[in-house]
């Protein structure tokens, strides 16, 4: 299954949005188009190889996400291996890590993420309102082209688990929800990264992040 849509202006980069059967892909597609990308929504791994960048979207539960995306696991690992920018959004970002407390973390029923950014997704503490839903501030912790021009801006979050990467340096930005948690993470090479919030729902700040992403793809 593959649907192509035309960009609104001259295309700066071709981006694939991975369709693994979950969620609303419409907003992220329109947002990327607004940011200058030529977008293809597909589950065809052949398209991943030729794209300038790949977006792994997602809402919902970790286990369902990982299971749905499982047929594409090797292909996604190849995208990362090749250095093509791979951008996980919300659950898509959580899937870049190794495990999640939302699925089992060990034993036979353990759910394995892509392990591209080693770490675990952990649940917010008892007694905190979950999901963490709404607009919260981004605190940029280190340089990464994805966060150009967004330090201190607000982004839209909906989640009950957050990424806890093993390597502190993987944290690009944090957000305060009774504790400071990583809201943007990236691997060491900087080519695999993800946002816990939804840039496609974060107004102008989100569009800036999508424009930054398209630029990363164009330069890659």
């Amino acid at each position, binding site marked *: 299954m593959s649907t192509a849509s035309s960009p609104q202006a001259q295309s700066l980069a071709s981006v694939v949005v991975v369709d693994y059967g979950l969620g609303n892909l419409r*907003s992220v597609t*329109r947002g990327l188009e607004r940011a200058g990308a030529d977008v293809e929504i597909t589950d065809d791994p052949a398209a991943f190889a030729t794209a300038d960048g790949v977006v792994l979207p997602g*809402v919902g539960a970790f286990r369902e996400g990982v299971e749905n995306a499982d047929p594409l696991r090797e292909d996604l690992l190849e995208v990362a291996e090749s250095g093509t920018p791979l951008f996980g959004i919300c659950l898509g970002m959580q899937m870049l890590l190794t495990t999640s407390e939302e699925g089992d973390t060990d034993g036979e029923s353990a759910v394995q993420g892509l392990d591209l950014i080693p770490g675990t997704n952990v649940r917010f503490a008892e007694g905190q309102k979950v999901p963490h839903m709404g607009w919260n501030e981004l605190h940029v912790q280190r340089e990464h082209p994805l966060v150009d021009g967004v330090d201190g801006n607000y982004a839209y979050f909906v989640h009950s688990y957050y990424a806890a990467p093993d390597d502190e340096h993987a944290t690009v930005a944090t957000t305060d929800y009774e504790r400071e948690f990583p809201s943007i993470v990236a691997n060491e090479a900087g080519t695999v990264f993800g946002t816990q919030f939804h840039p496609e729902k974060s107004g102008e700040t989100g569009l800036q992040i999508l424009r930054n992403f398209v630029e990363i793809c164009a330069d890659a």
Partner: protein
Amino acid sequence: MVLTKRVIPCIDVDLDEDGNPAVYTGVNFEDLQYTGDPVEMAKAYNESGADEFVFLDITASAEGRETMLDVVERVADEVFIPLTVGGGIRTTADIKETLRAGADKVSITTGALERPELITEGARAFGNQCIVISVDARRRFDEGGEHYVEVDGESCWFECTKKGGREGTGIDVLEWAAEAESRGAGELFVNSIDKDGTKDGYDLALTEAVCDTVDTPVIASSGCGSPEDMYDVFTEAGADAGLAASIFHFDEYSIAETKAYLDEHGVPVRI
């Protein structure tokens, strides 16, 4: 900084005489007045700093549903903030269709009261975050409730109603809120039949009682007549979001003004 309080305009969509989508604003769920084109209003509210939109299909017809999905698509293509869509959602197929059109959340009232499993099924299939359970609460100063609160020196309970308050259910709002949460509702949307359209403030007792009962975010609705009312529902009742229709639709206050007021008074908002 912390999670901000959300200011949300609610847009009731009906069909005009020519079958085109139009926004109507009512008083006590009646006396609807035409206030504009839904897509244009969404764009204007986005520029004014709305944190989210709620669209309610008030046609309760098949034509209305089709039109509504088209409105949702057009808004989702133009405006990059969350959209909640409600009205007539009764099955997981309705939920799916609405999300596919570009909604991020669905708001369900009667469909969930009549078949609570819809909450469980919807949360499992699409995630808790997109299932918003909406209650149309009415104050009852009689016996029959489970939980009583003091309102103006009198003891009352809150009843879930259907059909915009025209039909009672005997179900206590606080019992229902707890059940909705345990079934997987990601957010509760609390309307007051007593306050709707009155512009004399939210039902603070109702909102506070619901906030004390559940851990999921609560959107307060009905009765907002000024930025001060929104301040009260955040600071006194503990709501996570404040929804308003007529004060924004009739240009009495802009969203930007409302947020500036909240900011000046120490309420965290996205500006």
